[in-house]
């Protein structure tokens, strides 16, 4: 299981990545990340929502209320061009970090 501190750093990239394919509401964002990471990345409300609000304030995401898949009111988040622009440098940054870790700590599958 990945420790909370490590997971926090990954949350921004994970959120932007799952929103790349279309708008999702908070629960669905968390579920997709969990599913796509094979259960390794699970975010509590305290980790997910403050970050979503920050990303919304920075103009990376746009949130609006609408009807979810189950017909109930849900607040869904859509990736804005500014957020999409952040994805490429963020991915490159993480790739650099993994390469560096591989060299230093002999992490093989980072």
């Amino acid at each position, binding site marked *: 299981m990945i420790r909370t501190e490590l997971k926090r750093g990954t949350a921004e990239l994970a959120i932007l990545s799952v929103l790349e394919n279309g708008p999702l509401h*908070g629960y669905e964002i968390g579920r997709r990340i969990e599913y796509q990471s094979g259960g390794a990345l699970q975010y509590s*409300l*305290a*980790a997910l*929502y*403050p970050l979503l609000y920050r990303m919304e*304030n*920075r103009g990376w995401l746009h949130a609006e209320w609408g009807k979810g898949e189950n017909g109930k*009111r849900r607040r869904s988040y859509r990736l804005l061009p500014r957020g999409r622009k952040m994805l490429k440098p963020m991915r490159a940054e993480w790739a650099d970090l993994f390469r560096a870790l591989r060299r230093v700590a002999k992490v093989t599958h980072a």
Partner: protein
Amino acid sequence: MPDWRAYVREHLGSLRRSPAEEEEAVAELAAHLEDFHAALLASGTPEAEAFSRTCARAGNWKQLRSEIIAAKQEGTMRDRIRQIWLPGLVTFMSAYFVLILLQRLGARPLYSHPGEPVGVIFYLPWLFLLPLVGVMAGYLSRRAQGEGWRVYLASCVPVLALAALFLVLFRLVLSWISRSRRRRK
């Protein structure tokens, strides 16, 4: 089915926001817990276990509250800068440069006390331009999604700043003149 709204409201406490904003945050968090709980039940998890796992998913409520407050405050400060101070500063600077330009172009000012050392100088074309400057600041504020009093404040910032500058300079000049007069005596 538990009342997740009531549960979130009870545990989250005050976010120091308007009631409408607080209700929106409560509704969103409650919706998340409701979906999580429903998914557990659908996968065959017994009710009691589903409830306790959903409560655990919420995490630390104290931390959640303080982090939401910090995140929302960051947004408020950013909004204030974008919607009030930046439009105000941009238009204040533009008004100031227009005044310099008018002086360079040789616009003739009006004097309140012609021939006397102390008086007020009016550049009428520039004064007529100030309401337009205010409108421009209001427009910039609206473009940054400013609403209500923020737009009005942004449109007043250039004039208020110029008036403050004028009053400070006026006072400084007056005190300088009275000091030099005293020295002469």
